[in-house]
């Protein structure tokens, strides 16, 4: 356990060195929240509810979505860099699990993000934009749990993208395309309540709706009782599916590396 904590701690400290990074990061997130607030204010105009969704539900959706996504940032190019410069071979020699190490480092940067990105951004957003409180403290708790599950879904997706570096020259392209799908289909740019039916039909079969939208709906009380349970299971199912895919690619990739010698 100790080396993993060390990895997390190192990433955390590294982030502190770049002062501008974090100030700008918060600003970034706040600005984005504000953009969406303005857009939807214009779109709502004089109506108080559209399709049963109130304006404050929409703003809350954006604050939580953008806050979480800025916290959950993962460097998709990590593995590729190691494959390209050959240092991936060293990783196999180390007595730590490589996947675990990646996760530990990401967690280090997330804890940083939570303290220095999410909370300040939340604070600013509350003052200038106004956020709806969670329907109950239980909802808040379940929201947090669901958000963590959502993170693991996101993390698995990132891991799969990183695994392509064993076969593809340019992981950046795949990562960028992945990000487009995540951004559009997870509800962080258009709340999934307003997504056209046809598109929603497609999204249902993807993990994207389970990243942010489920926790946010729990928070807003848009989901009751059994539904919550079902959606938790859905999130866990996606984690499992993505984990398997990731593992298979990881094993195949290692084999390929050993055979080819990088």
């Amino acid at each position, binding site marked *: 356990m100790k080396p993993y904590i060390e990895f997390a701690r190192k990433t955390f*400290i590294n982030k*502190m*060195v770049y*002062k501008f990074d974090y100030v700008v990061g918060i600003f970034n997130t706040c600005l984005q929240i504000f953009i969406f607030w303005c857009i939807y204010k214009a779109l709502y105009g004089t109506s108080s509810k559209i399709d049963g969704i109130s304006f404050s539900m929409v703003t809350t959706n954006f604050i939580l979505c953008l806050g979480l996504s800025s916290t959950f940032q993962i460097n998709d190019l990590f593995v590729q860099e190691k494959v390209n410069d050959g240092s991936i071979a060293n990783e196999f020699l180390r007595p730590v699990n490589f996947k675990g190490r990646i996760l530990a480092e990401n967690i280090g940067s997330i804890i940083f993000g939570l303290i220095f990105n999410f909370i300040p951004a939340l604070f600013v957003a509350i003052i200038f934009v106004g956020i709806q409180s969670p329907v109950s403290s239980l909802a808040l708790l379940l929201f947090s749990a669901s958000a963590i599950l959502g993170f693991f879904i996101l993390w698995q997706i990132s891991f799969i993208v990183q695994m392509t570096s064993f076969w593809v020259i340019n992981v950046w392209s795949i990562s960028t395309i992945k990000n487009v799908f995540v951004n559009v289909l997870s509800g962080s740019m258009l709340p999934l309540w307003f997504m056209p039916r046809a598109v929603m039909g497609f999204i249902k079969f993807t993990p994207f709706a389970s990243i942010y939208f489920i926790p946010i709906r729990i928070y807003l009380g848009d989901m009751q009782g059994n539904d919550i349970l079902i959606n938790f299971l859905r999130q866990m199912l996606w984690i499992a599916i993505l984990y398997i895919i990731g593992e298979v690619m990881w094993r195949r990739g290692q084999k390929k590396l050993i055979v080819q010698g990088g």
Partner: protein
Amino acid sequence: MSKSLIELNGISKTFKISKRSKGIPSMALNLFHPKYEYKKAVKDISFRINEGEMVGFIGPNGAGKSTTIKMLSGILYPDSGHININGFVPYKQRKEYVSNIGVVFGQKSQLSWDLPVIDSFELIKHIYRISDKKYEENLEKFTELLNMSDFINQPVRQLSLGQRMRADIVAALLHSPKIVFFDEPTIGLDVVGKEKIRDFIRYLNETQGITMIFTTHDMQDIEKTCNRLIIIDKGDKLYDGNLIDIREKYGTSRQLDIQFESNINISPIEHVKVEQLDGLKKRFIFENTKVHIHELMSDLLTKYKVKDLSITEPDIETIIRQIYEGSIDIV
């Protein structure tokens, strides 16, 4: 007295470095109240170099050598003092000045990584506006001298270090500069590679009178190519003169190792320190200014039965190290 090609007068340079703290709480504080310290990299250095000279700059890491070179090449402004090279002030008349100099960074190639060497050369021809005639002449001459025809069409990333170094040196010479600066030109090369480069550099100096300035850690580079040595440490110029002088002045210590036929007790000799080595060997350490070696030797050889002997004088490297450490005082 003819005017020197390179003149430095009273050059100084100080850097402001931010102080990094350790541990999370003080780092957080550092975000709001950054601390700085001032480092004097170069303190009042002056020297002159004439056309055709080959000068080596030597000094420990952080001594101020690369800062001085950067000021000479125009990359950095001095805080005070004057520089005049070839009639130009390097940092004031940049474009005209750099047309006449070449710079070789041993650790950073100026060639395009993915392209064949010849492509990089042609780019340089275009940048320096080299005439077709001069370009063809230089290219042919250097390619032949350095045996580059078998790799000149290969991408730089496929070259060995020795090949790349050769290509980088040619790249710096294509526009026939008057002065060339070398920063660690033989670093990482094997013995043969180093020798090739040194021969080529000497040849250039002898045939074309190109003035050359080296910064290096490799004393052999200096011994085999330069006639003049400038030692810089902690921003000060400690020594400026030729290699022969440095040996004569500071390399006066001698070691005479004698293997005797039998175990002997040597009576103390004035100004000579005697050390016992393995077995029947003894070491006699002395200054050749204080002790005449032929007297010492004839004394020992007549008194005792000697099986074998050797005399060593300190190499330049040792002398320099002693200068850095302050065990030799420069007068």
